[in-house]
């Protein structure tokens, strides 16, 4: 079985799906990512699907599940690079990518994750973030 590599870039895990994944490969990616989020303490996951020429219900569900798992593990997932034909097909298939945040490309995805972490008062890795977070919750 082929495996999709997960790269760590700063505080972000980047997954660039370059192959037509079998269902088993997709499930393994889901598990590998959960482990890497915990092992690295990363707060952002970017899944680049630029190379995917289809997203069916199985992969769509995998993307939703990854988004939910990462949320529980205190990380934001952003899916980037969805092709227009894929978006059109997903809507007609009836798949609502529940809870999935999307951005145009990897760069925009990184900006989105950074912006989300800045807005979140619960973000406590940045020493200044702790202060502003505390201030925001005190009367």
């Amino acid at each position, binding site marked *: 079985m082929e495996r999709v590599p997960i790269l760590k870039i700063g505080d972000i895990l980047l997954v660039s799906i370059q192959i*037509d*994944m*079998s*269902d*088993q490969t997709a499930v393994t990616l889901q598990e590998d990512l959960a482990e890497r989020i915990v092992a690295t303490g990363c707060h952002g996951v970017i899944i680049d699907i630029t190379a995917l*020429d*289809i*997203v*069916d*219900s*199985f992969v*769509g*569900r995998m993307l939703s599940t990854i988004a939910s798992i990462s949320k529980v593990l205190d990380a934001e997932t952003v899916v980037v690079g969805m*092709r227009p*034909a*894929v978006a*059109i*097909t997903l809507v*007609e*298939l*009836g*798949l609502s990518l529940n809870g999935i945040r999307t951005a145009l490309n990897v760069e925009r995805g990184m900006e989105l994750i950074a912006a989300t972490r800045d807005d979140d008062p619960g973000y406590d890795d940045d020493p200044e973030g702790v202060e502003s977070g505390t201030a925001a919750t005190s009367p």
Partner: protein
Amino acid sequence: MTAGVDLGPKTQAIGSDEDVVRVRQLVRTVAVAAKLSLVDQTKLVTAASELARNTLIYGGGGTAEVTVVEDGRRRGVRIVFADSGPGIADLDLALTDGYTTGGGLGLGLSGSRRLVDDFDIQTAPGEGTRITVTKWSR
């Protein structure tokens, strides 16, 4: 006809999830050769992926046969998914968005019907399932 491109029927066995990947690849190749538009290729390959997975999971495996068809005015791609599994007892129910007996999203059958132009199912309890879909060029 385009010289050098074999447009005859091609069959792919479906016995593992790697075979589902092969069905997608075969359908994509044929859809490109038949000159379907990019969006139509994407819709057909997505529908094929859903139906091939159903053939594997619920039908216990089977085959996909992919053929280029012509109706005088248009060219299209037809795929027949066949298995000798348990069949579908209540077809209306199975074709309802969200209905699943396998913990899926229940979108495979109903969604792929929306993605193709012609959709036909022959099935009966104990007699397997045969689904024929066609996507026409426009």
